[in-house]
């Protein structure tokens, strides 16, 4: 009887943990914020926001994304690629002197993409579209 009671107590404790953790840890990330910023950001030698945003739209379309939203004032473009999976990407731009800083964010199904490679590929394609080199953010 005592064992059953203990087991019951253990199980209810376990279910309690299972309930609490996802809500409390929802803003956790498994990498340092700085590292993720470096992976997702690049600087381009241009101050032309509209031209850059149009290049981002065209690059996403070349990579088979469908554009969901684009906003010139905020400098953001979002798109989704569907191919048996869902890949959503948002690119935001902000000026830094005579340059533009770009940051891309990607989500594969329900998982954020933190691997550097897909971002490198995206920025390489974008560089070709802009005829400008993508530089790392210092």
């Amino acid at each position: 009887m005592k064992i059953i009671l203990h087991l019951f107590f253990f199980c209810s404790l376990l279910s309690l943990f299972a309930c609490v953790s996802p809500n409390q840890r929802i803003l956790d990330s498994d990498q340092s914020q700085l590292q993720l910023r470096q992976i997702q950001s690049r600087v381009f030698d241009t101050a032309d926001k509209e031209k850059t945003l149009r290049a981002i739209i065209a690059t996403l379309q070349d990579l088979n994304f469908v554009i969901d939203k684009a906003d010139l004032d905020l400098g953001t473009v979002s798109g989704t690629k569907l191919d048996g999976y869902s890949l959503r990407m948002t690119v935001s731009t902000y000026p830094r002197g005579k340059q533009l800083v770009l940051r891309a964010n990607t989500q594969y199904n329900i998982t954020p993409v933190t691997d550097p490679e897909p971002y490198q590929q995206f920025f390489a394609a974008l560089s070709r579209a802009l005829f400008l080199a993508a530089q790392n953010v210092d």
Partner: protein
Amino acid sequence: METGQVIAKIAIIALVGGNMPIDTTQKIRASVVTHPVDSRNTALRVTFQRIVWNENNEISKSERLKDPYLYQEFFDKLSKALFLEAQSL
């Protein structure tokens, strides 16, 4: 709902008694991006995707639509619409 799937479902039920869900709902997503080429011309790029759900409400397909015919048809309809707009009909 595709005829081929219905036939396949009937065949599977008859042969092995199992069930095969049929596609029932689809959502087409289209995105149109325009940009001015010069003072008289506008360039337009359209892209299509679709998400298909089966009768169990599960996503059975999510894909980009590649058929050139679809794009051709869109541009034909758009040309006609622009002509009608210009004539104020």
